[in-house]
């Protein structure tokens, strides 16, 4: 258009200079022709513009009715990978255990290795299966092994507050039990978790949960499982080996405070649950297998309180968390070995064994400025009361065995961590560990936790 206008101006300026009408006519014809050409070209361009816009609209992400989840447009399924490693400085203790407690054995994510270590890497894959189910897999990868931490489906469409979970999942008992190591506020698990379950209690089974239709958050859950994990043993039976019940209550207080409290109960059966003991062989002590067969019941109370100014945890926040437990076990003790001179040779029954043990932990983590937080944790356990017939038991097993020792294990832990973004974290931790009688272990850990991939949204 502009060019036409320009030409017109040029033409009009040139007019007085034009000598003859002939020239004028020719010029007018020429201008008219040019105008026509330009108009055609402009029309063509406008058509192309309309076409391009239409094509762009087609390429826009399809505008739907808004029911679709945000992640649906992303990568399906959600995949995340968590890399973890530590440098640990601690005493060289050959067989670490907690004095007064039956060694949980089972699996733990390291924590016993000294020096530079690679903790397991977590691979998490999750997605909605269809409108009715969601699936999730969490595999812990270490040298030569891939351990299935969780592999479960969960209902989405049951409604009325019900959710059913099936497969392998971390039990809903207590608070920290459902958290994977990367979500912990410290570089290792509380002593309580180690004493009770080895690290955490996983179920191979079913969980039914119900959220009450009230303004106050109330949640009730029941689990049935195989019960192969400590304190139970794999029972090779058709019925369930373990059952658990839990209830959670929670709410906000004002804009800045939120809390959750819970009570959980776990019952499981053990058959020939093994632990290393030393016998009373006159020819010198042998390492024999102590065997427990009976019931184990655990009661856990948990409480979490979080503070964030105006409900905005990004700048500053504070978290207090505590759990208490009482475990009662009742059954029979036996010992077995094939050492020829041992009193346990071939398997000997040692009568009734009943125990009641208590303990817990309390921790506080304070993020005092963006990216930085510090925390303190206190662990305490009580080896509690044990009832057995000393004459029978100590005829075969050395009374000096740590399990029979009355002791109150304790640990103090201090940590500081730095998270440059939501996805990376470095942590320095000091611990004074007195979980073994006669040993004061001053530990230092330097840890990294890096998350790749999907946003791992965490529960409260």
């Amino acid at each position, binding site marked *: 258009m502009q060019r036409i206008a320009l030409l017109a101006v040029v033409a009009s300026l040139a007019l007085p200079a034009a000598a003859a009408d002939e020239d004028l006519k020719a010029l007018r014809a020429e201008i008219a022709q040019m105008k026509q050409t330009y108009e055609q070209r402009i029309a063509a361009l406008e058509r192309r513009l309309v076409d391009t816009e239409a094509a762009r609209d087609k390429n826009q992400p399809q505008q739907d009715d808004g029911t679709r989840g*945000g992640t649906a447009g992303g990568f399906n399924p959600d995949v995340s990978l968590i890399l973890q490693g530590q440098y640990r400085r601690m005493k060289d203790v050959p067989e670490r255990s907690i004095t007064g407690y039956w060694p949980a054995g089972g699996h733990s994510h390291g924590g016993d290795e000294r020096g530079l270590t690679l903790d397991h890497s977590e691979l998490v894959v999750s997605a909605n299966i269809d409108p009715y189910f969601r699936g999730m897999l969490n595999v812990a990868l270490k040298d030569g092994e891939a351990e299935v931490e969780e592999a479960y489906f969960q209902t989405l469409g049951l409604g009325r507050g019900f959710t059913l979970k099936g497969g392998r999942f971390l039990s809903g008992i207590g608070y920290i039990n459902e958290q994977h190591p990367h979500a912990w506020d410290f570089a290792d698990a509380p002593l309580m978790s180690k004493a009770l379950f080895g690290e955490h209690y996983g179920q191979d089974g079913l969980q039914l949960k119900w959220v009450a239709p009230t303004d106050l958050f109330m*949640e009730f859950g029941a689990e049935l499982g195989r019960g192969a994990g400590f304190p139970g043993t794999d029972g090779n039976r058709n019925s369930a080996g373990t059952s658990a019940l839990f209830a959670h209550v929670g*709410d906000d207080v004002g804009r800045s405070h939120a809390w959750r409290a819970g009570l959980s109960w776990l019952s499981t059966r053990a058959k020939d649950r093994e632990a290393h003991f030393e016998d009373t062989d006159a020819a010198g002590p042998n390492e024999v297998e102590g065997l427990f067969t009976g019931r184990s019941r655990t009661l856990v109370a948990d409480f979490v309180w979080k503070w964030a100014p105006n409900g905005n945890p990004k700048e500053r926040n504070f978290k207090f968390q505590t759990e208490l437990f009482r475990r009662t076990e009742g059954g029979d003790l036996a010992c077995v070995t094939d050492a020829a001179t041992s009193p346990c040779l071939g398997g000997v029954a040692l009568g009734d064994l009943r125990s009641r043990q208590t303990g817990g932990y309390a921790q506080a983590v304070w993020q005092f400025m963006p990216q930085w937080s510090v925390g303190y944790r206190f662990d305490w356990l009580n080896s509690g009361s044990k009832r057995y017939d000393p004459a029978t038991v100590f005829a075969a097993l050395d009374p000096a065995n740590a399990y029979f020792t009355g002791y109150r294990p304790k640990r103090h832990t201090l940590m500081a961590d730095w998270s440059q973004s939501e996805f990376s974290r470095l942590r320095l931790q000091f611990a004074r560990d007195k979980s073994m009688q006669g040993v004061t272990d001053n530990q230092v850990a330097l840890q990294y936790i890096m998350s790749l991939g999907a946003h791992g949204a965490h529960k409260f």
Partner: protein
Amino acid sequence: MKRLLILFLLVALPVRAELRVFACEPEWASLVKELGGDMVSAYSATHALQDPHRIEARPSLIAKARNAQLVVCTGADLEAGWLPPVLRESGNAAVQPGRSGYFEAAQQVVRLEVPTRLDRAEGDVHAAGNPHIQLDPRNLLAVAGPLSKRLGELDAANAAHYAARQQAFADRLQLAIARWEREAAQLRGMRVVAQHRSFSYLFNWLGLIEAGTLEPKPGIEPGSTHLAQLLGQVKAKQARLIVRTPFDSPRPGEWLAERSGIPLVTLPFTVGGSERAHDLFGLFDDTMAQLRKAVP
């Protein structure tokens, strides 16, 4: 036993006639109120002083989601860090993504800043583009239609009521948009520094130009190196204003304002972000007033 308990609770609970809506952010609670009037009760999971990216999946939110008939959220991954566990734990089938009780506002508008490169080295980028869509009132118009339709589907008896209110709201908003645009005409072309990309839609609507962000990358805290660099740039780029949301830390903005002499303004960002921003109209009235006050 549990069945009996449920039956008891179902009978015992007071019958509430209103449609119960769980909104993730205050702007959607406000919009639902505009569209539903007395026929809806709207609960906002967050308030204006909270960063909607960083919310804890608190028990109280699960309890609210449990009883909701409709969940209205921004989407575009804004709530990815907390909404999925809240909805999953609620055991409420009706409001799960994909069901009619779930509504994402960002799906209704053309989103800005859709990244061409998805890499966390670029910070916490949202694959679906910038989710802070509420500060362009034309987006509210685009959301209001489908949202009103959805209310009518869930509560068919009152569908006509919702449709009428939507029409009235759209008329009022269109008039207001014309007014706001007139008021903001003088601001066109002004260069502004923002803390996070929270105001992109506002800038886009009013023709303001972003002259940098206090965050070096989305979701990464402003550091001293980046701020020092920015200080050099804002003068060269002739930035005339620094804006922040009520929940952003004031420190980086104050630092830059002090050294550059460019005024720092706190815009309400959403409903409840200032005293005047008590509803969607107040939100824009106050935003306009703040901008015009800062740049006479």
